[in-house]
Each structure stands twice: as C-alpha cells, then as structure tokens.
C-alpha cells in the first residue's frame, strides 16, 4: 500500500474565545492518497474549513500531526511550511481571492514569482509566462489574459484561481467550497474543469463542500460532524 500524500493523525484544534476554549477539531484522522479525489462533507461549523487550513499548513493543530509524504510537517519552521505550501499544495477558495490590481495572467504568474528571486524570475520569465498562458488556455481563458478580476465573471475568476493553484505543479489541491459562490450552470462547468485537470495530472484532491451531488462524484466521501470524522477509516 502506498504512502498518503497528505494525512492528519489525531488532529485537534481549538480556539480561545475570551476565557473559553472552543474545540473545533476533536481528533481527526484523514489520509489523502496520490491521485485520489476526496470530498469533505458536513454542515456549516463542522470543522471542514479548519481541517483544510490545518492540512494546508495555514494553521497549526493544537495537537496531533500533519504528515506530508509520511513526514510530519506541522511543526516545521514558518519559512519551511511556506515553501511546502508553495511547492506542493494548491488552494482554491470559494471567493477566488484574486488580487484585483493584477490581470488574470499576472495573478497566475504570481504563483511563479513567489518562489524565485527577481533575477531568477527575470531569466525564466519567458517560460513562466508560456506556462501561465498554457494553463489559462486549458481553463478556457486564452482570450481573457489581460483582464482584471473586476472585468471577469464569477466562473472566469474561479478558473483563474484554478490555473493559479496549478502553476507550481502541486501534488495536492485543497478546494474550499470552490463552487459555493457560483450559479449552478457555472458551477457545473468549473467542477468539470477541476475534475478533468485532476485526472490528467493525477493530483490528490480534497474538496470541501456541503453539496451531496458534487461529493458523490469523488472517489471517497468523508463526513464531518462537530469536529469529528464520521464512519471513515483513516489510511495512515
């Protein structure tokens, strides 16, 4: 049996609200295998997004471990966690989070700029630009390269966000309700696109949603309730 690309082992997370300790994750075990598409399903407040943030090293667990390729990574130094995020994890969010000052192409290229010095980027800018344009063409935005987010529709913005998540060729994509802000027709198109790219590239894909229909299209459904994974064995 292969090693999960990303796993949570007995992860807890609680927040302090004044003098109260609010538990959000209560001992979560979850494993994401290479090329696997997993849906994380649950009601609002179940802890889905928090788990996604912990798995994506955006937030630290209160206890437990986050493992990347079998290696504990949750307590690495800040810079090392940032490098892992950049190199191996792509994020897609409900509200796209595109930078409004940048064009679609620049938003995607920003992912390449994150990891390189000015000089190194300048040397390879041609290749970076070609890769970004290729990705934007794959998501059907070859004619919208130089448009700013304010000039794009919701579906187009999310496609730019998908292209941005993929430019660094990550092993894992973490998507937090990526269609939650789209109408059903647009959402269907975005889902088809995501799943098709996921299959082509063999990405591990964790999709946070509360859409049962969408969840059923994944390899596996993990349900969460009150910070606990229900009825899903961990593959650690």
């Amino acid at each position, binding site marked *: 049996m292969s090693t999960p690309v990303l796993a949570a082992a007995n992860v807890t997370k609680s927040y302090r609200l004044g003098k109260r300790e609010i538990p959000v994750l209560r001992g979560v075990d979850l494993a994401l295998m290479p090329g696997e598409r997993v849906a994380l399903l649950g009601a609002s407040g179940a802890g889905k997004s928090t788990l996604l943030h912990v798995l994506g090293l955006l*937030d630290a667990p209160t206890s437990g471990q986050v493992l990347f390729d079998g290696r504990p990574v949750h307590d690495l130094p800040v810079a090392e966690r940032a490098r892992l995020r950049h190199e191996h994890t792509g994020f897609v969010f409900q509200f796209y*989070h595109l930078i409004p000052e940048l064009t679609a192409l620049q938003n995607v290229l*920003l992912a390449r700029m994150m990891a390189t010095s000015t000089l190194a980027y300048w040397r390879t800018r041609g290749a970076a630009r070609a890769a970004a344009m290729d990705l934007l063409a794959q998501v059907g935005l070859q004619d919208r390269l130089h448009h700013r987010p304010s000039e794009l529709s919701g579906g187009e913005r999310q496609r730019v966000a998908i292209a941005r998540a993929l430019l660094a060729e990550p092993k894992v994509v973490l998507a937090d309700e990526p269609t939650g802000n789209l109408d059903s027709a647009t959402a269907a198109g975005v889902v088809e696109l995501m799943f098709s790219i996921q299959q082509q590239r063999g990405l591990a894909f964790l999709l946070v949603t509360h859409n049962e229909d969408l969840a059923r299209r994944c390899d596996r459904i993990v349900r969460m309730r009150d910070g606990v994974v229900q009825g899903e064995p961990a593959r650690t």
Partner: protein
Amino acid sequence: MYRLFLAVRYLLTRPINLLGMAGILVSVWALVVVVSIFSGFLQQIELHVRSASADISVHELPAWAEWTPLERALRDDPNVADTARRLVHYGMLSRPGQRPASPPLLGRSALHGGDQPFLFVLGIDAAAEARVTGFGSWLENPEIPAELRVADRTRPLAADAGRPRVLVGLERLQREGLHRGDTVVLTSGRLQSEPDGQKGLQQVTLELVVAGAFKTHHGGFDGNNVFVDHEVLRAALFPDAPDGVQEIAVRCRDAATLDATATRLQRAVARVLDRGDDRAYGKVQTWREKNGQFLASVEHQRGLLKIVLIVIMVTAAFLMLATLSMMVTEKTSDIGILTAMGATPLGVLQVFLACGLTITAAGVVLGLLLGTVTSVFLEEIRQFVLWATSIDLFPLKVYNLDRVPCAIDPLWLLQVAAMALAVGTVVSAWPAWRAARHDPLVSLRGN
C-alpha cells in the same frame, strides 16, 4: 520577486499614495532650496563683511595706548604685511543749520545701516588704509556715479582750501541728497576735565566738505561709517594725544593662518600694554571673530529654518503613514491568498515595506532633483515670476545682492536624503508590521 512586483502594482493602482510621495517630495525640495538659499546668503554675507574688513583688527585699546610701540610690536610678526591706525568715534552728520534726523527704532541697521543719524567716524590715514584694507577699491566701486566719485583718489581726504573732508557711504549720500563739495556738520562730543575736577561732556562740531562716496559690498558698514582724516579727528577730539590710537587694522601675508596670527598678536599687544596691574588691555580679532555675532545670527536663522522644515518632513511622513495604513487595511484580503501561495509573514511585511520605501525613495529622488534645479535657476525663476506677476519673491536690494544667492552643499543633500529615508522607513515599518501580523485565515474564511 513578488514583493517588488506587488508593491509596484499596489502603488500604481492607488493614486492616493501620490499624496505621501508628494509630501516627502515637497519637504525634501523645501529643505534643499531654502537651505541652499540661506547657505548662499551666508556665503555672500561673509564675502560682503570680508570686503569691508581688515584681516585682523586690534581694538578696545586704552586711552593711553600709543601707536608707535604697538605698530612696532605688530610688525615684528612674520605674517603681518602692513598696519594702519584708526581713531573711532561717534557722531551725527547734518547739513549746516539743520538738526539731525530723529533716531529710528533700535536694531534696524544690522543689514543695511545708514538709516539713522548716529554713525561711526573713522579717522584714518588714507594711504595706510588703502594698503591694509580695500579702501582704494571702495572709492572706485563702479556703482558710484561719476559726480559722486572722489576727485583725487590718491589723496581723498586732503583738505579742501583748508577745510577738512569727509567720505560718506554712497547710499547715505544719495538718500540725504548730498553732493561732492557740499558742507556738512559732524556733531560729536568729548570728555573734558572741568575746573572742579569732574569730567564733563563737551560738544565738538566739525564742519566738513563732502569728498565723495565710498561703497563696499557691506551695506551695514557703508551706512554706519564715515571717514575723515586721522589728524583732523585727533586734533578735534584728542588734542593731547599726538600718538594716540583706538584701532589698528592689520593686513596679513597668509590669510589662511589668521587665527594663529591673531593669537600671536594678542600676546604682542599684551606685552606692549602691560602695566603690571594684571589687566589685559586691547583685543585682537580676525575679521570673522569681529563679525562673529552677526554671522552667527544668520547661521542661527538657517538652523532654525532647518528645524521648521524637518518638522514639515515629519508631518509629510505622517501623511504617508495614513495612506499606507489605509492601503494595508484595504489589502488584508490579499494577505490570506499570498500566505496560501507560500508567502511568509516576513514576505508580507516586505511587500508593504517596499511600498513605503518606494514612495519615500521616489519622493526623495524627485525632491532632490527638483530642489537642485530650483536652486540653480532660482534667479531665473525669480525674474520670471517678477515678469509674469510683478511679485518680487526675493527683493535683492533689501539684502544688497546682485542675484538670489545659492550654495548647494552635497553633504546637506546626502543628509536630507538620509533623513527622509530614515523617516520614510520608520513610518512604513508600522503598517507593514501590522500587515505581517494579520491572521491570513481571517481573510480566507470569507469576504
């Protein structure tokens, strides 16, 4: 790479950031221009004062001081090229039969002089004075109209048919409507022993013929001094002191060693005037020391202006702080995605710090350039404004100048740049630090 790229994009898409840059630009510009003008003004003032001064002056001599031994002692110094003695007294000048004008408020004669009836009467040996100071050139100043020029420049104070002559500063002469050959009355006084043993003030009146005008570059000197022949003044005021002297002007061979020379001469004067009473008589000062208070007052004004302008720079920095803080507040939503894409808090800090430093650097560079260009072409700008609006921004006559003075000090430019960059860094650091501490999850959880 992303730090600089984002910083530039943020700045280019937010015209309000120009406000911060404009504030820095204006304050740097003002610091360059105003201080350059004041430095140039100070240089001009020094030149003007220098042109009307001897290298070294010996003054505050006691009433019993004698010229011959003092001169001998001074000439023994290897750096002394020549000396000239002076009598210095006070008086009022008026036309015969007229009362002198009422005195104006105190302190008005600092720069210009000549607008009050009281003046210094310098009794000089014209030939000796010409060897020691610029006296000869003061009589030949091209600004003196031909009809007011001295007729015989080799003997300007020689008596006119037995009547002693007086040389008057050009502006005073013109203001009072005097001409060469006019008769004026010098009213002064001297202390005289009364029969009861007390000393009383006795009025002395001298009728003098105007020999012509003199003009140095120092308006204050011209307005406050008149020259008469040494022997005329001595006979009128100090008839019992044939070898008396009140001030000695000294010309030095090497002007670069005036301070050391003055120190030696002070010792020489003290030796000559030593009466064994533990008192030091006579004071030897270089031209700079003698006018030190006046020069220091201009220097002091420059210092005060620097402080005022630095306060303006700090105010501009607060403007920048406000615009940067606004930007950080607006851009907190970007911090979440930047972090998700691999930015560290330090990277986020650097993005916003780069914004502030770019604003500061642009303001400093443009301010320095604009300030330097403005300083260099200040006279042309003044003339243009005068031509276009009839407003004289810098009335030259008030300051006895030919053009707006300007002296750009590269060290000052560096100091201004360093100061602006330091202030800009400090005010950029706080919003940047706030951005770096922002929890990215707050922005990622939803708009």
